[in-house]
Protein backbone atom coordinates (compact mmCIF):
# COMPACT_ATOMS: atom_id res chain seq x y z
CA UNK A 1 0.00 0.00 0.00
CA UNK A 2 2.65 2.50 -0.78
CA UNK A 3 0.97 5.64 -1.55
CA UNK A 4 3.05 6.67 -4.34
CA UNK A 5 2.89 9.46 -6.76
CA UNK A 6 3.50 13.06 -5.77
CA UNK A 7 6.43 15.01 -4.64
CA UNK A 8 9.46 13.23 -5.90
CA UNK A 9 11.43 16.13 -4.57
CA UNK A 10 14.49 14.08 -3.88
CA UNK A 11 17.05 16.32 -2.40
CA UNK A 12 20.22 15.88 -4.31
CA UNK A 13 22.62 17.09 -1.73
CA UNK A 14 26.25 17.42 -0.99
CA UNK A 15 27.76 16.79 -4.36
CA UNK A 16 30.38 14.12 -4.22
CA UNK A 17 28.43 11.74 -2.01
CA UNK A 18 27.57 9.44 -4.85
CA UNK A 19 26.31 6.51 -2.85
CA UNK A 20 24.01 8.50 -0.61
CA UNK A 21 21.25 6.21 0.57
CA UNK A 22 17.76 7.16 -0.37
CA UNK A 23 15.60 7.49 2.70
CA UNK A 24 11.88 7.31 2.07
CA UNK A 25 9.83 9.52 4.35
CA UNK A 26 6.19 8.56 4.77
CA UNK A 27 3.58 11.22 5.52
CA UNK A 28 -0.16 11.63 5.30
CA UNK A 29 -0.53 14.89 3.40
CA UNK A 30 -3.80 15.87 5.00
CA UNK A 31 -2.89 17.50 8.30
CA UNK A 32 -1.93 21.14 8.02
CA UNK A 33 0.15 22.82 9.29
CA UNK A 34 2.25 19.69 9.79
CA UNK A 35 1.82 18.18 6.37
CA UNK A 36 -0.52 18.82 3.48
CA UNK A 37 -0.61 18.84 -0.29
CA UNK A 38 -0.15 22.36 -1.59
CA UNK A 39 -1.71 23.94 -4.66
CA UNK A 40 1.08 22.59 -6.82
CA UNK A 41 0.26 19.06 -5.69
CA UNK A 42 3.39 18.61 -3.57
CA UNK A 43 3.88 17.68 0.06
CA UNK A 44 4.23 20.91 2.00
CA UNK A 45 4.05 22.12 5.56
CA UNK A 46 6.12 22.27 8.73
CA UNK A 47 7.23 18.67 8.49
CA UNK A 48 8.18 19.00 4.84
CA UNK A 49 10.58 21.81 5.62
CA UNK A 50 11.79 20.10 8.77
CA UNK A 51 12.35 16.78 7.00
CA UNK A 52 14.26 18.38 4.14
CA UNK A 53 16.49 20.24 6.59
CA UNK A 54 17.10 17.10 8.67
CA UNK A 55 18.08 15.14 5.59
CA UNK A 56 20.46 17.88 4.58
CA UNK A 57 22.11 17.85 7.99
CA UNK A 58 22.37 14.05 8.02
CA UNK A 59 23.67 14.00 4.41
CA UNK A 60 20.88 11.76 3.24
CA UNK A 61 18.85 11.83 0.06
CA UNK A 62 15.20 11.89 1.00
CA UNK A 63 12.05 11.15 -0.90
CA UNK A 64 8.53 11.97 0.20
CA UNK A 65 5.81 9.38 0.01
CA UNK A 66 2.20 9.83 1.08
CA UNK A 67 0.17 7.08 2.67
CA UNK A 68 -3.31 6.77 4.11
CA UNK A 69 -3.33 7.36 7.88
CA UNK A 70 -5.05 4.04 8.55
CA UNK A 71 -2.21 1.94 7.21
CA UNK A 72 0.69 4.30 7.81
CA UNK A 73 2.24 2.15 10.58
CA UNK A 74 1.71 -1.19 8.85
CA UNK A 75 3.49 0.08 5.78
CA UNK A 76 6.43 1.31 7.82
CA UNK A 77 6.73 -2.12 9.38
CA UNK A 78 6.63 -3.83 6.05
CA UNK A 79 9.44 -1.52 4.88
CA UNK A 80 7.59 0.39 2.22
CA UNK A 81 9.21 3.54 3.57
CA UNK A 82 11.81 4.11 6.22
CA UNK A 83 10.33 6.71 8.55
CA UNK A 84 7.00 8.26 9.44
CA UNK A 85 6.98 12.03 9.72
CA UNK A 86 3.28 12.74 9.85
CA UNK A 87 2.35 14.71 12.95
CA UNK A 88 2.44 11.46 14.92
CA UNK A 89 2.37 11.96 18.68
CA UNK A 90 4.70 9.82 20.74
CA UNK A 91 2.52 7.51 22.86
CA UNK A 92 3.21 4.46 24.94
CA UNK A 93 1.28 2.11 22.66
CA UNK A 94 3.14 3.33 19.63
CA UNK A 95 6.46 3.12 21.46
CA UNK A 96 5.79 -0.56 21.98
CA UNK A 97 5.92 -1.26 18.26
CA UNK A 98 8.13 1.49 16.86
CA UNK A 99 11.00 3.69 17.94
CA UNK A 100 10.66 7.45 17.97
CA UNK A 101 13.23 10.22 17.73
CA UNK A 102 13.13 12.92 20.35
CA UNK A 103 10.09 15.12 19.91
CA UNK A 104 10.42 17.99 17.48
CA UNK A 105 7.46 19.79 18.96
CA UNK A 106 6.61 20.34 22.60
CA UNK A 107 3.88 18.01 23.89
CA UNK A 108 1.15 19.66 21.91
CA UNK A 109 -2.27 20.31 23.33
CA UNK A 110 -5.30 18.72 21.79
CA UNK A 111 -8.27 21.02 21.87
CA UNK A 112 -12.02 20.98 21.66
CA UNK A 113 -13.48 23.54 19.29
CA UNK A 114 -17.18 24.35 19.12
CA UNK A 115 -19.63 26.91 17.79
CA UNK A 116 -20.31 28.21 21.30
CA UNK A 117 -17.92 28.28 24.24
CA UNK A 118 -20.44 27.16 26.88
CA UNK A 119 -20.66 23.46 26.17
CA UNK A 120 -19.60 20.77 28.61
CA UNK A 121 -17.05 18.66 26.72
CA UNK A 122 -17.69 15.73 29.02
CA UNK A 123 -21.36 15.57 28.14
CA UNK A 124 -21.46 16.92 24.61
CA UNK A 125 -21.41 15.12 21.28
CA UNK A 126 -17.80 15.27 20.12
CA UNK A 127 -16.38 14.46 16.69
CA UNK A 128 -12.89 13.05 16.16
CA UNK A 129 -11.02 11.27 13.40
CA UNK A 130 -11.11 7.47 13.61
CA UNK A 131 -7.91 5.96 14.94
CA UNK A 132 -6.37 9.06 16.50
CA UNK A 133 -5.29 9.63 20.10
CA UNK A 134 -8.10 12.16 20.31
CA UNK A 135 -10.78 9.60 19.48
CA UNK A 136 -9.30 7.24 22.08
CA UNK A 137 -9.41 10.06 24.60
CA UNK A 138 -13.00 11.09 23.90
CA UNK A 139 -14.04 7.44 24.27
CA UNK A 140 -12.82 7.53 27.86
CA UNK A 141 -14.79 10.66 28.77
CA UNK A 142 -18.51 10.89 29.29
CA UNK A 143 -18.96 12.54 25.92
CA UNK A 144 -20.67 10.89 23.00
CA UNK A 145 -17.94 10.09 20.50
CA UNK A 146 -18.72 10.41 16.79
CA UNK A 147 -15.96 9.14 14.52
CA UNK A 148 -15.33 10.31 10.98
CA UNK A 149 -12.78 8.88 8.60
CA UNK A 150 -11.05 12.16 7.68
CA UNK A 151 -10.23 15.28 9.73
CA UNK A 152 -12.08 17.44 7.19
CA UNK A 153 -15.33 15.62 7.88
CA UNK A 154 -15.03 16.35 11.60
CA UNK A 155 -14.82 20.07 10.81
CA UNK A 156 -17.74 19.81 8.41
CA UNK A 157 -19.77 18.01 11.08
CA UNK A 158 -19.32 20.68 13.72
CA UNK A 159 -20.00 23.42 11.18
CA UNK A 160 -23.16 21.64 10.10
CA UNK A 161 -24.38 21.25 13.67
CA UNK A 162 -24.23 17.47 13.49
CA UNK A 163 -22.00 17.44 16.57
CA UNK A 164 -21.42 19.96 19.38
CA UNK A 165 -17.64 20.00 19.24
CA UNK A 166 -14.64 18.63 17.43
CA UNK A 167 -11.48 17.39 19.09
CA UNK A 168 -8.14 17.42 17.30
CA UNK A 169 -4.61 18.77 17.63
CA UNK A 170 -4.87 22.43 18.57
CA UNK A 171 -2.53 23.43 15.77
CA UNK A 172 -4.77 21.75 13.24
CA UNK A 173 -7.84 23.54 14.56
CA UNK A 174 -6.21 26.95 14.97
CA UNK A 175 -6.70 28.20 11.39
CA UNK A 176 -10.36 27.16 11.45
CA UNK A 177 -10.87 28.96 14.73
CA UNK A 178 -9.15 32.04 13.33
CA UNK A 179 -11.13 32.17 10.12
CA UNK A 180 -14.54 30.69 10.90
CA UNK A 181 -17.10 30.85 13.70
CA UNK A 182 -15.46 28.07 15.73
CA UNK A 183 -14.02 28.84 19.17
CA UNK A 184 -11.75 26.84 21.44
CA UNK A 185 -13.49 25.36 24.45
CA UNK A 186 -10.79 23.55 26.36
CA UNK A 187 -7.43 21.86 26.01
CA UNK A 188 -5.98 18.52 27.02
CA UNK A 189 -2.40 17.35 26.77
CA UNK A 190 -2.24 13.96 25.12
CA UNK A 191 0.91 12.15 24.06
CA UNK A 192 4.44 13.38 24.38
CA UNK A 193 5.08 15.70 21.50
CA UNK A 194 5.50 14.75 17.89
CA UNK A 195 8.43 12.70 16.68
CA UNK A 196 9.61 10.72 13.69
CA UNK A 197 8.86 7.01 13.92
CA UNK A 198 11.22 4.26 12.76
CA UNK A 199 11.26 0.49 12.74
CA UNK A 200 12.80 -0.88 15.92
CA UNK A 201 15.48 -2.55 13.86
CA UNK A 202 16.53 0.73 12.28
CA UNK A 203 18.45 2.27 15.16
CA UNK A 204 21.25 3.61 12.99
CA UNK A 205 18.97 5.69 10.80
CA UNK A 206 17.01 6.86 13.81
CA UNK A 207 20.27 7.96 15.43
CA UNK A 208 21.14 10.12 12.43
CA UNK A 209 17.79 11.90 12.47
CA UNK A 210 17.83 12.21 16.22
CA UNK A 211 21.21 13.93 16.06
CA UNK A 212 19.99 16.24 13.31
CA UNK A 213 16.94 17.21 15.37
CA UNK A 214 19.19 17.88 18.36
CA UNK A 215 21.42 20.13 16.25
CA UNK A 216 18.41 22.05 14.97
CA UNK A 217 17.23 22.52 18.52
CA UNK A 218 20.68 23.72 19.54
CA UNK A 219 21.10 26.39 16.88
CA UNK A 220 17.55 27.65 17.11
CA UNK A 221 16.52 26.80 13.56
CA UNK A 222 13.80 24.49 14.84
CA UNK A 223 12.27 27.37 16.79
CA UNK A 224 12.28 29.50 13.64
CA UNK A 225 10.41 26.79 11.78
CA UNK A 226 7.89 26.36 14.60
CA UNK A 227 7.37 30.11 14.52
CA UNK A 228 6.91 30.22 10.82
CA UNK A 229 4.20 27.56 10.92
CA UNK A 230 2.65 28.98 14.11
CA UNK A 231 3.03 25.82 16.15
CA UNK A 232 2.82 26.27 19.91
CA UNK A 233 5.78 25.66 22.20
CA UNK A 234 9.49 26.34 21.76
CA UNK A 235 12.71 24.58 22.64
Amino acid sequence: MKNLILSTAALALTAGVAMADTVRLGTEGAYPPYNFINDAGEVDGFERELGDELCKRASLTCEWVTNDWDSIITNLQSSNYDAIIAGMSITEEREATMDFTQGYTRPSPSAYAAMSADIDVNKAVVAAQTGTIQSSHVATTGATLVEFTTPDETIAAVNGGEVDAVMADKDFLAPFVAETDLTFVSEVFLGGGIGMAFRESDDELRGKFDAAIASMKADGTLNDLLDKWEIEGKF
Partner: protein
Amino acid sequence: MSCIDTIQSYAFRSLGFGERMLPRTDFTLCEHFTLIGSGMIWNVYYGVLAILTGFLFANLLAVAKNSNSRWARKPAEWFIFLFRGSPLFIQFFFGYFLFLSLKGVSPMFNPLTSAALGALIVLFLNTSAYSAEIFYGALRSIPKGDVEAADAYGFTGWFRFRRIMFPTMMRLAWPAYTNEAIFLFHATTLVFFSGFPAWRQKGDALYYANYFADKTFNPFVPYPILAFYFILLTLVIIWIFGVINKRLNKHLPQAAVKKLKIRPNLIR
Protein backbone atom coordinates in the same frame (compact mmCIF):
# COMPACT_ATOMS: atom_id res chain seq x y z
CA MET B 1 -10.96 -11.88 31.61
CA SER B 2 -12.09 -15.26 30.39
CA CYS B 3 -13.63 -15.69 26.99
CA ILE B 4 -17.11 -16.17 28.45
CA ASP B 5 -16.78 -12.83 30.25
CA THR B 6 -15.62 -11.18 27.05
CA ILE B 7 -18.60 -12.51 25.18
CA GLN B 8 -20.91 -11.31 27.93
CA SER B 9 -19.50 -7.81 27.89
CA TYR B 10 -19.03 -7.34 24.15
CA ALA B 11 -21.48 -9.56 22.28
CA PHE B 12 -23.94 -6.70 21.85
CA ARG B 13 -21.45 -3.84 22.04
CA SER B 14 -22.31 -2.78 18.49
CA LEU B 15 -25.85 -2.03 19.67
CA GLY B 16 -24.62 -0.13 22.71
CA PHE B 17 -25.14 -2.82 25.36
CA GLY B 18 -22.51 -4.22 27.67
CA GLU B 19 -19.10 -2.79 28.43
CA ARG B 20 -18.82 0.80 27.23
CA MET B 21 -15.05 0.87 26.83
CA LEU B 22 -13.60 -1.17 24.01
CA PRO B 23 -10.57 -3.28 24.93
CA ARG B 24 -7.47 -1.10 24.88
CA THR B 25 -4.51 -3.36 25.67
CA ASP B 26 -3.61 -7.05 25.53
CA PHE B 27 -6.01 -7.89 22.77
CA THR B 28 -7.05 -11.52 22.70
CA LEU B 29 -8.36 -13.58 19.80
CA CYS B 30 -11.57 -13.98 21.75
CA GLU B 31 -12.05 -10.21 21.81
CA HIS B 32 -11.39 -10.07 18.09
CA PHE B 33 -14.00 -12.72 17.36
CA THR B 34 -16.58 -11.33 19.78
CA LEU B 35 -16.44 -7.69 18.73
CA ILE B 36 -16.21 -8.32 15.00
CA GLY B 37 -19.05 -10.79 15.38
CA SER B 38 -21.00 -8.18 17.31
CA GLY B 39 -20.49 -5.80 14.40
CA MET B 40 -21.92 -8.40 12.04
CA ILE B 41 -25.32 -7.69 13.63
CA TRP B 42 -25.35 -4.41 11.71
CA ASN B 43 -24.29 -6.02 8.45
CA VAL B 44 -27.09 -8.54 8.76
CA TYR B 45 -29.56 -5.83 9.76
CA TYR B 46 -28.77 -3.70 6.71
CA GLY B 47 -28.63 -6.66 4.37
CA VAL B 48 -31.89 -8.30 5.45
CA LEU B 49 -33.99 -5.15 5.63
CA ALA B 50 -32.65 -3.70 2.38
CA ILE B 51 -33.31 -6.96 0.53
CA LEU B 52 -36.83 -7.38 1.88
CA THR B 53 -37.91 -3.81 1.15
CA GLY B 54 -35.86 -3.59 -2.04
CA PHE B 55 -37.50 -6.73 -3.38
CA LEU B 56 -40.95 -5.12 -3.40
CA PHE B 57 -39.77 -1.85 -4.91
CA ALA B 58 -37.68 -3.68 -7.51
CA ASN B 59 -40.74 -5.56 -8.75
CA LEU B 60 -42.59 -2.30 -9.12
CA LEU B 61 -39.67 -0.75 -11.00
CA ALA B 62 -39.29 -3.75 -13.30
CA VAL B 63 -42.97 -3.65 -14.24
CA ALA B 64 -42.75 0.12 -14.73
CA LYS B 65 -39.72 -0.23 -16.98
CA ASN B 66 -41.58 -2.82 -19.02
CA SER B 67 -44.65 -0.60 -19.26
CA ASN B 68 -45.91 0.89 -22.51
CA SER B 69 -46.58 4.21 -20.86
CA ARG B 70 -43.75 6.72 -21.16
CA TRP B 71 -44.69 8.21 -17.79
CA ALA B 72 -44.07 4.96 -16.01
CA ARG B 73 -41.15 3.79 -18.13
CA LYS B 74 -38.89 6.84 -18.21
CA PRO B 75 -38.65 7.50 -14.46
CA ALA B 76 -37.97 3.82 -13.83
CA GLU B 77 -35.28 3.75 -16.52
CA TRP B 78 -33.57 6.85 -15.12
CA PHE B 79 -33.75 5.65 -11.56
CA ILE B 80 -32.16 2.35 -12.49
CA PHE B 81 -29.49 4.04 -14.62
CA LEU B 82 -28.60 6.52 -11.88
CA PHE B 83 -28.18 3.92 -9.16
CA ARG B 84 -26.55 1.23 -11.29
CA GLY B 85 -24.30 3.74 -13.01
CA SER B 86 -22.66 5.28 -9.95
CA PRO B 87 -20.51 3.79 -7.19
CA LEU B 88 -22.24 3.09 -3.88
CA PHE B 89 -19.48 5.12 -2.27
CA ILE B 90 -20.71 8.27 -3.99
CA GLN B 91 -24.34 7.39 -3.28
CA PHE B 92 -23.54 7.24 0.43
CA PHE B 93 -21.86 10.61 0.24
CA PHE B 94 -24.80 12.29 -1.44
CA GLY B 95 -27.26 10.43 0.76
CA TYR B 96 -25.61 11.69 3.93
CA PHE B 97 -25.31 15.18 2.49
CA LEU B 98 -28.96 15.27 1.50
CA PHE B 99 -30.12 13.97 4.87
CA LEU B 100 -28.04 16.62 6.62
CA SER B 101 -29.69 19.36 4.57
CA LEU B 102 -33.13 17.92 5.23
CA LYS B 103 -32.38 18.06 8.92
CA GLY B 104 -32.15 21.83 8.58
CA VAL B 105 -35.61 21.93 7.03
CA SER B 106 -37.47 20.17 9.80
CA PRO B 107 -36.51 18.17 12.92
CA MET B 108 -38.81 15.49 11.54
CA PHE B 109 -35.91 14.35 9.36
CA ASN B 110 -33.46 13.98 12.27
CA PRO B 111 -33.35 10.17 12.32
CA LEU B 112 -32.27 10.12 8.67
CA THR B 113 -28.72 11.21 9.49
CA SER B 114 -28.20 8.18 11.71
CA ALA B 115 -26.54 5.25 10.01
CA ALA B 116 -29.31 2.90 11.13
CA LEU B 117 -31.91 4.62 8.97
CA GLY B 118 -30.03 6.81 6.50
CA ALA B 119 -27.65 4.13 5.28
CA LEU B 120 -30.51 1.67 5.09
CA ILE B 121 -32.39 4.00 2.74
CA VAL B 122 -29.37 4.35 0.45
CA LEU B 123 -28.82 0.59 0.41
CA PHE B 124 -32.52 0.05 -0.24
CA LEU B 125 -32.49 2.36 -3.26
CA ASN B 126 -29.28 0.81 -4.53
CA THR B 127 -30.42 -2.78 -4.32
CA SER B 128 -33.82 -1.87 -5.76
CA ALA B 129 -32.15 -0.56 -8.89
CA TYR B 130 -29.91 -3.60 -9.36
CA SER B 131 -32.68 -6.07 -8.61
CA ALA B 132 -35.11 -4.21 -10.86
CA GLU B 133 -32.71 -4.63 -13.78
CA ILE B 134 -32.46 -8.35 -13.08
CA PHE B 135 -36.24 -8.72 -12.79
CA TYR B 136 -36.77 -6.65 -15.92
CA GLY B 137 -34.42 -8.92 -17.85
CA ALA B 138 -36.32 -11.94 -16.57
CA LEU B 139 -39.67 -10.36 -17.41
CA ARG B 140 -38.50 -9.85 -21.00
CA SER B 141 -37.50 -13.47 -21.32
CA ILE B 142 -40.73 -15.06 -20.09
CA PRO B 143 -41.65 -17.60 -22.79
CA LYS B 144 -44.25 -16.17 -25.12
CA GLY B 145 -46.27 -19.36 -24.83
CA ASP B 146 -46.87 -18.86 -21.10
CA VAL B 147 -48.46 -15.47 -21.64
CA GLU B 148 -50.47 -16.66 -24.65
CA ALA B 149 -51.81 -19.58 -22.68
CA ALA B 150 -52.86 -17.19 -19.89
CA ASP B 151 -54.62 -15.01 -22.43
CA ALA B 152 -56.39 -18.06 -23.84
CA TYR B 153 -57.72 -18.89 -20.38
CA GLY B 154 -59.03 -15.35 -20.12
CA PHE B 155 -56.62 -14.25 -17.38
CA THR B 156 -56.06 -10.52 -17.36
CA GLY B 157 -54.40 -7.71 -15.46
CA TRP B 158 -53.26 -8.29 -11.90
CA PHE B 159 -54.41 -11.89 -11.82
CA ARG B 160 -52.41 -12.76 -14.94
CA PHE B 161 -49.33 -11.04 -13.51
CA ARG B 162 -49.67 -12.58 -10.06
CA ARG B 163 -50.39 -16.11 -11.19
CA ILE B 164 -48.49 -16.51 -14.46
CA MET B 165 -45.87 -13.86 -15.08
CA PHE B 166 -44.56 -13.23 -11.56
CA PRO B 167 -43.67 -16.85 -10.72
CA THR B 168 -41.87 -17.35 -14.03
CA MET B 169 -40.06 -14.04 -13.68
CA MET B 170 -38.85 -15.04 -10.22
CA ARG B 171 -37.78 -18.45 -11.43
CA LEU B 172 -35.74 -16.95 -14.26
CA ALA B 173 -34.26 -14.16 -12.17
CA TRP B 174 -33.40 -16.19 -9.09
CA PRO B 175 -29.76 -17.19 -9.78
CA ALA B 176 -28.80 -13.62 -10.63
CA TYR B 177 -30.82 -12.32 -7.69
CA THR B 178 -28.88 -14.63 -5.38
CA ASN B 179 -25.70 -12.95 -6.57
CA GLU B 180 -27.23 -9.54 -5.96
CA ALA B 181 -28.09 -10.53 -2.40
CA ILE B 182 -24.50 -11.63 -1.75
CA PHE B 183 -23.17 -8.38 -3.17
CA LEU B 184 -25.54 -6.36 -1.08
CA PHE B 185 -24.36 -7.96 2.14
CA HIS B 186 -20.79 -7.21 1.10
CA ALA B 187 -21.72 -3.63 0.30
CA THR B 188 -22.99 -3.11 3.85
CA THR B 189 -19.35 -2.89 4.97
CA LEU B 190 -19.12 0.49 3.23
CA VAL B 191 -21.63 2.12 5.60
CA PHE B 192 -19.21 3.14 8.34
CA PHE B 193 -16.12 2.89 6.21
CA SER B 194 -16.89 5.80 3.98
CA GLY B 195 -20.43 6.94 4.43
CA PHE B 196 -21.81 7.50 7.88
CA PRO B 197 -20.05 8.40 11.14
CA ALA B 198 -19.93 5.84 13.94
CA TRP B 199 -21.56 6.96 17.19
CA ARG B 200 -20.20 5.85 20.56
CA GLN B 201 -18.01 3.31 18.81
CA LYS B 202 -21.04 1.39 17.66
CA GLY B 203 -20.11 0.13 14.23
CA ASP B 204 -20.29 -2.80 11.88
CA ALA B 205 -17.88 -5.71 11.53
CA LEU B 206 -15.44 -3.77 9.37
CA TYR B 207 -15.42 -0.90 11.88
CA TYR B 208 -14.26 -3.22 14.67
CA ALA B 209 -11.82 -5.05 12.42
CA ASN B 210 -10.39 -1.66 11.56
CA TYR B 211 -10.24 -0.77 15.26
CA PHE B 212 -8.19 -3.86 16.05
CA ALA B 213 -5.91 -3.42 13.05
CA ASP B 214 -5.30 0.11 14.21
CA LYS B 215 -4.61 -0.77 17.84
CA THR B 216 -2.57 -3.94 17.32
CA PHE B 217 -0.74 -2.62 14.24
CA ASN B 218 -1.42 -6.00 12.69
CA PRO B 219 -3.93 -6.33 9.84
CA PHE B 220 -3.38 -10.06 9.42
CA VAL B 221 -5.59 -11.12 12.30
CA PRO B 222 -8.75 -8.96 12.27
CA TYR B 223 -9.37 -8.87 8.52
CA PRO B 224 -9.17 -12.63 7.98
CA ILE B 225 -11.61 -13.00 10.91
CA LEU B 226 -13.92 -10.59 9.13
CA ALA B 227 -13.48 -12.62 5.94
CA PHE B 228 -14.32 -15.79 7.87
CA TYR B 229 -17.60 -14.30 9.12
CA PHE B 230 -18.54 -13.13 5.66
CA ILE B 231 -17.82 -16.50 4.08
CA LEU B 232 -20.16 -18.03 6.67
CA LEU B 233 -22.78 -15.40 5.94
CA THR B 234 -22.44 -15.98 2.20
CA LEU B 235 -22.94 -19.72 2.70
CA VAL B 236 -26.10 -19.05 4.69
CA ILE B 237 -27.43 -16.73 1.98
CA ILE B 238 -26.70 -19.29 -0.73
CA TRP B 239 -28.45 -21.95 1.33
CA ILE B 240 -31.60 -19.86 1.95
CA PHE B 241 -31.81 -18.74 -1.67
CA GLY B 242 -31.21 -22.33 -2.78
CA VAL B 243 -34.19 -23.52 -0.73
CA ILE B 244 -36.39 -20.85 -2.29
CA ASN B 245 -35.04 -21.72 -5.72
CA LYS B 246 -36.03 -25.34 -5.21
CA ARG B 247 -39.53 -24.26 -4.30
CA LEU B 248 -39.78 -22.02 -7.34
CA ASN B 249 -38.73 -24.88 -9.60
CA LYS B 250 -40.67 -27.65 -7.85
CA HIS B 251 -43.07 -28.23 -10.71
CA LEU B 252 -40.41 -28.55 -13.39
CA PRO B 253 -38.74 -31.76 -14.53
CA GLN B 254 -35.24 -32.04 -13.04
CA ALA B 255 -33.40 -31.65 -16.34
CA ALA B 256 -35.09 -28.30 -16.89
CA VAL B 257 -34.06 -27.14 -13.44
CA LYS B 258 -30.44 -27.80 -14.26
CA LYS B 259 -30.73 -25.91 -17.47
CA LEU B 260 -32.07 -22.89 -15.63
CA LYS B 261 -29.31 -22.88 -13.11
CA ILE B 262 -26.54 -22.66 -15.62
CA ARG B 263 -28.03 -19.69 -17.42
CA PRO B 264 -25.14 -17.26 -17.35
CA ASN B 265 -27.55 -14.70 -16.15
CA LEU B 266 -27.01 -11.10 -15.33
CA ILE B 267 -24.85 -10.84 -12.33
CA ARG B 268 -24.41 -7.53 -10.66
